């Protein structure tokens, strides 16, 4: 095992996951490729969504890949940061909205 859990070079090996399970790996990459094709959303819009999700998932590989991908698609730094704030807002909102559960429970328990 390497001294660190994450190695940037491992991103290049992503495609190799098919070697240990060809059918599932191939199906995954076919699906993945299809998802990112131009559709009702543009490929750039999808890349920005991916960038935001990459951050909420805190996946270093995905952040590496979709930072590069959005740059390639002409996305500006301001747009990229706004996308990440959308992710951050949902993430923090998702935390806070659970506060209503806490409030409900407190209201139920207290006399």
């Amino acid at each position, binding site marked *: 095992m390497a001294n660190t859990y994450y190695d*940037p070079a491992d991103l290049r090996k992503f495609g190799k996951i098919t070697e240990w399970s060809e059918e599932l790996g191939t199906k995954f990459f076919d699906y993945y490729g299809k998802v990112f094709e131009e559709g009702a959303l*543009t*490929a750039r819009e999808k890349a920005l969504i991916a960038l935001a999700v990459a951050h909420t998932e805190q996946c270093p590989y995905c952040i590496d890949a979709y930072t590069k991908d959005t740059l*390639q*698609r*002409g996305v*500006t*730094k301001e747009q990229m940061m706004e996308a990440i704030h959308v992710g951050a807002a949902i993430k923090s909102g998702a935390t806070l909205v659970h506060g209503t559960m806490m409030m409900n429970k407190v209201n139920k328990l207290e006399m």
Partner: protein
Amino acid sequence: MSVTKTKTSLHKRHDDLAQANKQLDILSGGIFADGELPTFAKKIKETNQFPLRPKKLEILQINVGYMCNQVCEHCHVDAGPDRKEIMTWETMEQCLEVIKNTGAHTLDLTGGAPEMNPHFRRFVEEASKAGIKDFIVRSNLTIIRANKKYYDLPDFFKKHNVHVVSSMPHWTRGKTDKQRGEGVFDLSIKALQELNERGYGMPDSDLRLDLVYNPNGAYLPSDQTGMEKDFKKALMEDFGIQFHNLFAITNLPIARFLDYLIASENYEDYMYQLVEAYNPSAVANVMCTNTISISWDGWLYDCDFNQMLDLKVNSKVKHISDYNEDLLNDRDIIISQHCYGCTAGAGSSCQGTVA
């Protein structure tokens, strides 16, 4: 407003990377020498495309000098105001003889800023008489607003029906100025508006105006068609500017872009990107198969990139003074690892994608 000159060329700085052989050492060493990545020769052998051979000559590309009013960070020519390599009238006369007799349908003048060559206008006037179908001048746009003596260039281009191809790395000021120098965006916009006023770039106009996009860093260009849509929408909405086509060009690891890749520790990752994006179908149409590049001092090359790496054509005919199209077309094209830049993804050439 003027362009802020923040840098000098690698040549002026006597940087090691100003030397072609040093660049070639880097491109042949490291990850390519130890077999981590396949050499370009090995890669094209996989699809029986080695040695790379020319097809019919279509484009004569003449580099009339490395002097430029800009010092762009990515420049593979290492051009700038401090470069003194300028084509003489004597060499231009030799080029004119070739232009009169060539089978090529496109004449492509490049630099540096070709307009800064003192014989530029006389050369264009003479060359335009040869009846070449497509006569391109690669203008960096800012030169049109750099000095009063260049203000009439849009009229001059129109008079000689020159096809203007101009660099425009992004539709926003920030990205453009970062790559090409502070003030470049505003001057480029002004120059494009002036070209539009003369009819350049308008939908039904024969006065062709194309833009060249190349990435602002260590990543590859995206889909050319999609980028063209984005450029057209943004430039029209923000500035009322129109143009015909966008050419998406990959930055090749040569000169200042190579320097940037190494200094920013992106070199290996970038070469991986190029190799992973290798597209065998782009190989058949790379520009060296239909182009001859002529340097300011009359030497002949397979392309402008090989010119900057001083890789002269592998032919008995090596100089414009001995020019013979039939002999030249019977040659093997010289390749190295920089060629991966022209075969990545949809391919890349001075005329945009090739696959």
